[in-house]
């Protein structure tokens, strides 16, 4: 999803078509050379290397909490380091801080703009950052006094020339990294609002970013409407590596927990894994039956599982090593727009255009069905449950003691 209008073709002095053609030809030659260099080292597939790894078997997750309170589409969420609090932002301009254990709302702020597309929790837990159509990223210190008007202490930190698509604190409360519809990413000093570094290289809106795990040094990855995922050196502002294998906008990027790879989710209905040391894509997570875009991705703690939130209202859970889907999670009644693992890896939270957030985890035991249940057999998409645009046949099987979902 994007808001920009393509850059206008400004009338300019006549450029000989030749120069444009020559540049394009040179670019294509280099792209081919890059492909060749990468291909030389593509001696095996990840799932082949992972053949000996045990399969994951049956995989069931349960929704433990549903956070209700937003009046419109939830666009973004982030966990606090305390593993319990969550900040979320919405199309209606509201930013809410929740206690996920109790589902209580602890703070609420109304932004002066709608479509708050980005929000982030500060590492200290004492502030949140957010922004969207206002083109800014603002920081709100969280007061212990629930009656205090948070908006009064708001600090404007980042200024872009188009919408803010994502933001993230670095490893302290002092710096924020932002991405924008204006095609750039930027690093800001929170206290002074000063621009510390800007990152140019995307040819269209940047939609997402993720910081490398701190052990792996000062880099981050961004994804954009130019179908590229770029890896950046934060100090120099240089783009170190660039990957262009997606066929549409990249909505979400997330580092593999070791820092040696990252995953992406795209409007082309696939998620992909890019290996940074091999400098190439090494896995595609897709199925013919999945035709709606992936809006948001995150890994489990070990990196074995990749959770993808999709525009068909589902969450697909992928076995990262084997390339197969291990589960499909239903529940949201509209697009899944955002998704993040909790800091200790015990649960993950998803946010949706259905105005809610859901926290799910893995039950230790498969619970027996004790209440009356409805058993549904669905044989074609025409007899689907309402609100689910799932195009392929799917079914529920009820066995003696538990319900499984089959793709």
């Amino acid at each position, binding site marked *: 999803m994007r808001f*920009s209008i393509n*850059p206008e*073709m*400004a009338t300019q002095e006549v*450029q000989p078509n030749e*120069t*444009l053609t020559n*540049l394009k030809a040179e*670019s294509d030659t*280099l*792209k081919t*050379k*890059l492909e060749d260099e990468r291909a030389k080292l*593509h*001696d*095996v*597939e*990840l799932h082949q*290397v992972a053949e000996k*790894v045990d399969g994951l078997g049956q995989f069931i997750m*349960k*929704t433990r909490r549903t956070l209700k309170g937003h009046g419109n589409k939830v666009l973004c969420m982030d966990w606090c380091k305390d593993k319990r609090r969550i900040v979320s932002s919405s199309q209606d301009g509201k930013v809410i801080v929740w206690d*996920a*254990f109790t589902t209580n709302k602890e703070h609420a702020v109304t932004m002066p703009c709608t479509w708050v597309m980005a929000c982030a929790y500060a590492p200290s837990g004492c502030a949140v950052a957010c922004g969207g159509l206002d083109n800014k990223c603002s920081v709100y210190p969280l007061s212990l006094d629930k009656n205090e008007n948070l908006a009064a202490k708001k600090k404007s930190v980042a200024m872009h020339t188009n919408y803010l698509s994502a933001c993230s604190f670095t490893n302290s409360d002092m710096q924020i990294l932002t991405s924008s519809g*204006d095609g750039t990413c930027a690093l800001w000093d929170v206290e002074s609002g000063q621009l510390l570094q800007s990152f*140019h*290289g995307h*040819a*269209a809106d940047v939609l997402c970013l993720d910081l490398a795990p701190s052990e792996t040094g000062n880099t981050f990855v961004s994804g954009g409407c130019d179908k590229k995922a770029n890896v950046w050196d934060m100090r120099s502002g240089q783009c*170190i*590596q*660039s990957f262009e294998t997606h066929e549409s906008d990249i909505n979400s990027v997330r580092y593999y*927990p*070791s820092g*040696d790879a990252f995953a992406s989710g795209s409007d082309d209905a696939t998620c992909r894994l890019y*290996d940074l*040391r*091999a*400098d*190439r894509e090494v896995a595609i997570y897709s199925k013919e039956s999945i035709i709606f875009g992936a809006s948001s991705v995150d890994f489990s*703690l*070990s*990196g*074995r*599982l990749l959770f993808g939130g999709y525009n068909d209202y589902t969450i697909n859970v992928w076995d990262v*090593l084997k390339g197969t889907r291990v589960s499909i999670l*239903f*529940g949201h009644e509209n697009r899944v727009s955002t998704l993040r*693992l909790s800091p200790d*890896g*015990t*649960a993950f939270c998803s946010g949706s255009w259905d105005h809610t957030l*859901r926290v799910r*985890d*893995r039950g*230790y035991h498969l*619970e*027996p*069905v004790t209440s009356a*249940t409805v058993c549904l057999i669905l044989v074609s998409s025409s007899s689907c449950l309402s609100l689910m645009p799932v195009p392929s046949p799917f079914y529920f099987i009820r066995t003696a003691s538990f319900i499984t979902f089959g793709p």
Partner: protein
Amino acid sequence: SQGKMARDMSDIDILKMELEQLKKEVSTPREPVSKTSKDIMDWCEAASGTDLLITGVPDDKNPYKPEKGGCIIT
């Protein structure tokens, strides 16, 4: 650095920027997938014991532990 925003650049400028970048990337050091994939897999396997979404969490340690009786079908 004072680069221009993509939307302020002409098609030629964007192409030149991409070309600069491609020249750098062609000479990026890289390792064979057989080695790097194995490293990814090894890291994952080593960490799998601590991945609570794979091992599951006993109810008494689960802050989201379900209420007794019945279950939520999602």
